[in-house]
């Protein structure tokens, strides 16, 4: 199966000690490292920092929505001295644009692929490192310029102003908005850099997973995390070039005078009429052709990780391993033909709405199958109620809400009403925050001992979970109601509209909840950094888990395994009758063939 696998030669204990990773200096160890774990930790730290930045943008948005045009406390006078400490409409546009851009491109996508993909893929398949370690390092070093570009997009000209979707013509014509002058160009450079960074990652992941599995690690013995990462990497490899080239087309429209997206004769702010010949809808098609699959890029890895963690915390094999794999593949496949559901009201031929509607509604099916299988995994288990499990259960529970609210939007006629209202905002926050980020919180807690050698504090993590979970629901659930009431997104002030003026108190309530949620993250940061130095030491396998990463030392050395792993069975043999007096059966533990057949027959 793994004929190309070099791990047997490379991972032998003396073989690797000879390479002498301890000779590497500080710079090669911590900055320009080619070790997948260090790169993963670099991504993790950077994305967590960016999560704080994106969260502060969000709190600015919430401040304006709760108390429009009031002087912002603490930072208002410093950030907006010209406006008397108020958030101006331009600044508000910048805030939600950069909140979404940062959270999507600098947090959720890289924390799943860049951080956890890097940390887990080689370890879980029993490889010493990624297939292309230098490419891996480059992917992180392409990520940093993206942060600089997004930073420029935030401060220049008052900030990019076209939303994270960057729809033309607002984004293309320099006179359309203050932020469409140079800030938008920086924004596009930023997207290009993250695109290249993710592309390097995904090529690396595909190659590594296909070529470098340990002996005995057949495809259907891979943990679901690895399946999710593989499927995500494939999705990314096919979808991302579309966004990158669309971004370059938009850049050339802005800088080189082309007209891919600009029709003739448009006059913006008394500027000269455009020459034109282009079509703004083209951007929407290209953008969503990437950005819809991107929704699954932002979800599937979390689904995989949650499956692994749930099985471990319930001490039970995952329920329906193959259905889980196939439904992830189905989600990925269908994900490519549903982009049009973002465009029901866009002026696209209405008949197209029908096909997109059927595909979109059917994508709920694999999602439902996965949900039932997670519940099946918990059913009859012996649940360890620690913060990992709680965050995983929150993932499932919030995914149910986010998935069900998606059905409203899939329906073309209903979507025509709720499109671009707060209902949409509620829906995607339930998926991206409620599901993905709770999955990420669980994953941080779960794999922390592997990478830092120490345990995180469970009580603090539980407090963090409870506060975040309550704050999250109180912030985002009411958004469904706002959407039904017809409150449009991206409004700096809705109170002047007669049909929305009664929504002020509700928005204030949501802002208080968002502040609670935001301040709860202090617990996470504190727990993370204090545990790194003072947490109790963890052995190789503190959770009694089965998959290969727990077979390596904590933290694993350069080259990962001191003893080359050989895999004998799947990663979910918890509470197996073959496991003897313990309730888990590591993948490396030899079981005679006849007995293994018995287990497989289960």
């Amino acid at each position, binding site marked *: 199966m793994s004929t190309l696998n070099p791990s047997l030669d490379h991972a032998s204990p003396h073989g690797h000690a000879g390479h002498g990773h301890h000779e590497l200096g500080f710079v090669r160890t911590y900055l320009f490292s080619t070790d997948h774990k260090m790169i993963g930790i670099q991504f993790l730290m950077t994305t967590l920092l960016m999560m704080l930045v994106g969260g502060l943008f969000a709190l600015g948005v919430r401040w304006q929505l709760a108390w429009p045009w009031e002087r912002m406390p603490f930072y208002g006078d410093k950030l907006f001295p010209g406006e008397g400490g108020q958030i101006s409409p*331009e600044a508000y546009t910048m805030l939600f644009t950069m909140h979404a851009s940062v959270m999507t491109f600098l947090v959720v996508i890289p924390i799943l692929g860049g951080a956890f993909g890097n940390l887990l893929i080689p370890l879980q398949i029993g490889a010493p490192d990624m297939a292309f370690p230098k490419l891996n390092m480059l992917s992180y070093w392409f990520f940093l310029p993206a942060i600089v570009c997004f930073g420029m997009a935030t401060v220049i000209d008052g900030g990019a*102003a076209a939303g994270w979707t960057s*729809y033309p*013509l*607002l984004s293309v*014509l320099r006179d*359309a908005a203050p932020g469409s002058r140079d800030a938008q160009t920086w924004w596009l450079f930023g997207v290009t850099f993250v695109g290249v960074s993710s592309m390097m990652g995904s090529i690396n992941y595909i190659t590594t997973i296909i070529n470098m599995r340990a002996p005995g690690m057949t495809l259907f013995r891979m943990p679901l995390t690895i399946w999710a990462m593989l499927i995500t990497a494939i999705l990314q490899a096919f979808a991302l070039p579309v966004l990158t080239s669309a971004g370059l087309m938009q850049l050339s429209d802005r800088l080189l005078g082309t007209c891919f997206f600009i*029709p003739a004769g*448009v006059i*913006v702010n008394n500027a000269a009429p455009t020459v034109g010949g282009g079509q*703004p809808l083209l951007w929407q098609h290209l953008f969503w052709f990437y950005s819809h699959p991107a929704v699954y890029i932002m979800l599937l890895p979390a689904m995989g990780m949650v499956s692994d963690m749930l099985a471990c915390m319930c001490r*039970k094999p995952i*329920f*329906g*391993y193959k259905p889980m794999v196939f439904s992830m593949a189905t989600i990925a496949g269908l994900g490519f033909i549903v982009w049009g559901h973002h465009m029901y009201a866009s*002026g696209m031929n209405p*008949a197209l709405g*029908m096909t997109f*509607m*059927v595909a979109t509604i059917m994508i709920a*099916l694999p999602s*439902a*199958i996965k949900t039932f*299988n997670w519940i099946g995994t918990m*059913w*009859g*288990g*012996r*649940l360890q*109620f620690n913060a990992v499990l*709680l965050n995983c259960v929150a993932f499932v*529970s919030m995914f149910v*809400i986010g998935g*069900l609210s998606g*059905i*409203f939007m899939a329906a*073309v*006629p*209903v979507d*025509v*009403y709720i499109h*671009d*209202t707060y209902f949409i905002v509620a829906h995607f926050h339930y998926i991206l925050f409620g599901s993905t980020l709770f999955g990420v919180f669980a994953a941080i807690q779960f794999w922390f001992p592997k990478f830092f050698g120490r345990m995180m504090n469970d009580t603090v993590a539980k407090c963090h979970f409870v506060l975040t*979970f309550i704050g999250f*629901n109180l912030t985002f*659930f009411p958004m*469904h109601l706002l959407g*039904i*009431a*017809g409150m*449009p997104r*991206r*409004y*700096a*002030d809705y109170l*002047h509209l007669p049909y929305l003026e009664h929504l002020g108190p509700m928005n204030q309530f949501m802002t208080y909840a968002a502040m609670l949620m935001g301040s709860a993250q202090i617990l996470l940061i504190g727990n993370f950094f204090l545990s790194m130095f003072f947490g109790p030491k963890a052995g190789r396998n503190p959770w009694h888990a089965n998959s290969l990463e727990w077979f390596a030392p904590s933290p694993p050395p350069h080259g990962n395994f001191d003893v080359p792993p050989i895999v004998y069975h799947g990663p979910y043999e*918890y509470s*197996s*009758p073959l496991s003897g007096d313990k*309730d888990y059966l590591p993948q490396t533990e030899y079981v005679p063939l006849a007995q293994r057949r018995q287990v497989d027959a289960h």
Partner: protein
Amino acid sequence: MGGKLWALFFMLTALAALAATFAGPLLGVGFPGDGRAYTTIGVKIDSLFMLILWIVVVVFIGTQLALGYVLWKGAEAATTGRPAQFSHGNPTLEVIWTIIPAAILLFLAIYQMDVWAEYRIKTMIPKANEVVAEVTARQFEWRIRYPQAGKPLGLRPQPDDVHTVNDLRVPVGRSVSINLRTEDVQHSFFVPHLRIKQDAVPGKVIPVWFHVTKAGEYDLVCAELCGWGHYKMKARVLAMPEDEFQAWKKQIAVEQFTDGVTAAAPDSNQTPNTAE
């Protein structure tokens, strides 16, 4: 013991979500206005919404109850020390929970096709419809152009056209069309009370047709980000009975073409320029 509390915690969250869903309309946060849609398609949209809502609520309750049950049982097992069940799944269950949701979802997809088809595909632009006005969005207002009473709307502005800003008037009781354009960036024509939404795309003239069923004043807002003043593209749609609408058109033409010096206002029959 802690485990059962957590199971309760998750069940309470689900219960609160359910309560909030149904408390919304009671607290005045439901569909805008009195909660009813005043176009023919709006009524269909609302009934579809309610159908989906009920299906979703049933599925939500079922899933959350199952989740609560397994959490509760799992907590019990953890305290009593009962070992976890060793099972890799159940093919029969997989088939059941594939087929049933598939049937429900397919039903939903096919059931609502008809509504969309009736309003946007079979009759994308009903031939009999009068195009009452051209609505041109721009940063940050709505400019509306009506033809002179008794004349059809020309694709290009005519000298005798009547113009208003942020004030769209349409007759009730019959289906009418508007031509939606934008002068600069993308906008979206959104009338929440009427459940109408259509993006205005640069370079395109998009026909939007609807049938308002009740006279009244409705808010018209922009639903697609169009610049810093996106939030303030506030206008109104005034739906009026047929005769009032015609009278208003005559009167506004008089107001527009009377310069205050010459007393005679152009009648609809003797407009300044009828050549086309």
